[in-house]
């Protein structure tokens, strides 16, 4: 079992906090068209797919949402409260890190391993809350026996992590370290790239409800020393939008597309 460089690259996209159901989500198509629009006619063989977990969240929330609906008679209020609960409970599930979060994370790990068994070089692109699951999944895989040999990328189920609008720098998520890949025993052991994109006014990144810009340059670069085997890069991006619009504006930014092209090539 090894990754085959001749096989098309696969980009697995992980969504963030979402309303609705799995059927409503198509962020993989956004990444696909963004990358294709930035190739300048150069060939690049790749495909995208979305890792869905909104239905898992919805199943876990169903009973509580049904009980709260019993107390509301106004149709509009019911819809508004249900939407708010849908979003807020997604975050609480990730924060609590209980059985639902474990199911979501394991599902992601399993899908990455399936792609690995098929031999495709794979890249993970995650947005918002999905970056927490993606980060944990990558670190879980790095701890697995037989994977991520630094001397041979054929043993890597994942070739890079890209996070967009991630709240991972906020204290409440309690993440601050990557799992080391070890040292490798050849002159140039490979490093695992992690690119973290953030817009300064994105409230999910800054934690500021009012969209006050986050200053500075580093969020996740401090998560790993050079010896960890990770190549971690924080990159500020101006989506041209503000506040929650900025949080949803990464998917179409040409600068991100250009960087993805280079990463996949």
């Amino acid at each position, binding site marked *: 079992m090894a990754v085959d*460089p001749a096989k098309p690259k696969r980009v697995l996209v992980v969504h963030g906090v979402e309303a609705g159901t799995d059927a409503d989500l198509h962020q993989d198509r956004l990444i696909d068209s963004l990358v294709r629009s930035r190739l300048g006619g150069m060939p690049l063989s790749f495909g995208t797919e979305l890792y869905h977990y909104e239905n898992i969240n919805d199943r876990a929330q169903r009973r509580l949402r049904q009980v709260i609906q019993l107390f509301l008679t106004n149709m509009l209020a019911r819809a508004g409260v249900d939407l708010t609960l849908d979003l807020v409970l997604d975050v609480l599930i990730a924060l609590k890190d209980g059985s639902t979060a474990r199911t979501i994370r394991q599902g992601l790990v399993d899908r990455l391993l399936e792609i690995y068994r098929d031999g495709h070089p794979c890249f993970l692109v995650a947005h918002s809350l999905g970056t927490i699951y993606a980060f944990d999944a990558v670190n879980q895989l790095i701890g697995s026996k037989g994977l991520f040999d630094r001397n041979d990328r054929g043993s890597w189920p994942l*070739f890079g992590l890209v996070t967009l609008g991630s709240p991972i720098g906020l204290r409440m998520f309690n993440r601050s370290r990557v799992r080391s890949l070890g040292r490798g025993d050849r002159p140039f052991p490979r490093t695992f790239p992690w690119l973290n994109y953030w817009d300064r006014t994105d409230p999910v990144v800054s934690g500021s409800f009012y969209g006050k810009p986050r200053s500075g340059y580093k969020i996740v670069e401090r998560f790993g020393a050079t010896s960890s085997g990770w190549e971690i890069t924080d990159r500020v991006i101006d989506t041209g939008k503000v506040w929650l619009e900025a949080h949803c504006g990464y998917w179409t930014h*040409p600068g991100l597309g250009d960087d993805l092209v280079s990463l996949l090539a």
Partner: protein
Amino acid sequence: MLCGWLPAVLLVSGCAHHYMYSRTLEAPDSLGHTRQHLLYWNTTVRPLWFDSREGSVRILEQCSLSTIDYDEQPAGIVFRQRERDEPVLEQARETHLCGRILNGDRIIDLRPGLIDVTVACRDRPRDRFDTPQPYLEAREAPYQFQVARHEVKDFSEIPKRPACGN
């Protein structure tokens, strides 16, 4: 509460001006081929909200899928050495910086006109998974891009990688 905020946010966002700065330069790449190299960055100016500036100046290559990012950092606007960038010039070996924008330390300082860009490394594929991604040839003297500014409706108008074969 969110609904109360939304009209104000939309109003302020609507006042934003988006600018795109770009220029293409013909020069040799690290394999010795003469190619087009497109440099660009973008900014947003908002009279009633916080201004924001793209955190990177990018160079896209013709006939290569390479993207070089000159990221705004405390040390200036710099091209940070990546795993597959091999230092060619001495200063890159010491600093782990493969290049720099010489006209300012922040994107906000950059103006239309001549932009001086240095390149001190070359692409070096490391294993069978890496395909060659040549970029501007390393040299002591800076490259000069005569950059023009355009106001754009949104950033989808940012120019694309120069097509191969032109």
